[in-house]
């Protein structure tokens, strides 16, 4: 398959460990924050989102934390698996404004 990003920040974790991917956003008016996973040769896949009136949201093996004070978003993946290897992007929107994507992070899981 083709590479999605050749010069992205990379996070390498051992299989079974927890992963934390961070993102800084820019617009204080953003109301929705979304994490996407993008595998090589594929389009972004929705993982989880959080609204600005929340500071934590949990999904299956994933947790998103939002700190509006410092405009910071993080994605925690529990018990990381080889299938989690991909590029992860955060995105922000006011709900009906275009998605603005952050810089991606490449997650590599070491078996």
């Amino acid at each position, binding site marked *: 398959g083709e590479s999605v990003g050749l010069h992205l920040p990379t996070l390498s974790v051992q299989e079974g460990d927890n992963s934390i991917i961070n993102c800084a956003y820019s617009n204080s008016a953003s109301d929705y924050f979304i994490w996407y996973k993008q595998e090589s040769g594929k389009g972004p896949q929705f993982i989880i989102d959080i609204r600005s009136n929340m500071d934590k949201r949990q999904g299956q093996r994933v947790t998103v934390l939002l700190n509006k004070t410092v405009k910071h978003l993080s994605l925690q993946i529990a018990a990381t698996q080889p299938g989690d290897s991909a590029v992860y992007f955060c995105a922000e*929107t006011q709900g009906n404004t275009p*998605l603005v994507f952050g810089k991606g992070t490449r997650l590599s899981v070491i078996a």
Partner: protein
Amino acid sequence: DAGVTQSPTHLIKTRGQQVTLRCSPKSGHDTVSWYQQALGQGPQFIFQYYEEEERQRGNFPDRFSGHQFPNYSSELNVNALLLGDSALYLCASSLDGITYEQYFGPGTRLTVT
């Protein structure tokens, strides 16, 4: 439940040529957004179509144009191709013009030589 589909998968064009990319939204969706993703970058918003009209546009020149059909499918046209137009073009669909719940297609890889 049919997801977002795009065609073609890959395309190679020469500088100066024109290209048309196609997108069919997820079943039940009426809004289509197009994004350009250069290698190593996050997707950049091109424009959004809702009710067959361009509703929002990103910072892209007029060489980039589009269309939405009554069945909600959409086309992206790029004229006078430049080498810098080489990228992955992504289509995303949603409902009622919202953008926080978009579903992305697999993309069309355009290479301009």
